[in-house]
């Protein structure tokens, strides 16, 4: 089974990201540090499976967001993401 057949997208981690952000961020616009591509977080490609969440740019594959949940802690790396615009719920 190829990785590409299995991969999900940013929609699938919307729940997990609520542990980090106070709002739903699947519709947030994110800018890739690697190539400058701007698009909704829901369009990022998800890898990492049970080890952690890795959301990558669909254009250049750069990792924009990486999260590992360890019992008692959440480790987060957002260095691949240069800007993020989160829609105001209200």
């Amino acid at each position, binding site marked *: *089974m*190829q*990785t*590409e057949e*299995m*991969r999900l997208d940013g929609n699938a981690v919307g729940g997990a990201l609520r542990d980090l952000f106070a709002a739903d961020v699947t519709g947030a616009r994110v800018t890739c540090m690697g190539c400058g591509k701007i698009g909704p977080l829901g369009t990022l*490609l998800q*890898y*990492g*499976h*049970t*080890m*952690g969440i*890795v959301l*990558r740019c669909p254009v250049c*594959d750069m*990792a924009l967001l*990486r*999260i*590992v949940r*360890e*019992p008692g*802690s959440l*480790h*987060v*790396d957002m260095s691949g993401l240069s800007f993020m615009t989160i829609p105001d719920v209200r």
Partner: protein
Amino acid sequence: MADTPFIARGFHRSRPPTPAGRLPPGQYETRDFPVLSAGPTPRTSLTAWDFTISDRSEHRMRWSWIEFLQLPHEKPTVDIHCVTKWSKFGTTWEGVSVDTLIRAARDAGVEPAEYVVAFSDGGYTTNLPLADLAGGKAWVAFGYEGSPLPPEHGGPARLVVPHLYFWKSAKWVRGLRFVERDEPGFWEQLGYHNRGDPWREQRYQGDV
């Protein structure tokens, strides 16, 4: 967060825990080979592929694919353990012992160091002590179960270090860098252990 979790009526794990012995703590046995990747499958042509070992002074030893295949091969059969809790017994590989590679690199003037960073196509890295790569403990494998290593499992070649959690066995490996100080790799930066011994359950950084 609830103190007492809600127990789902009639739900239990689908696989009964295997008794200890061959299984490190917290693991269960699987018969399949789950594919876990941190990114898309790289597609490097064999003409473009090379494997390099370098030190901090940039001394380097390099093999092309053809040169690599001409090195002595071994066919280890080993148990492998993933930090996501599955273990697979008796996996068979074909590859070059890392000892062979390090010896050749040394002869070419590359200075080993206490720690190593293994790096792969696609940008994946993992760090481990040199002591865990030397002494018949690790291979760069290009064959699995008698066939060429498939891309989703790391082909054309991957690192195989079975005595550590399998995220250390970098898929699509392209080389090793000797470093004086331990340099956390892709998963280690996010909290996974610098060494990763499954028998001591070294899953995360804080684990002893």
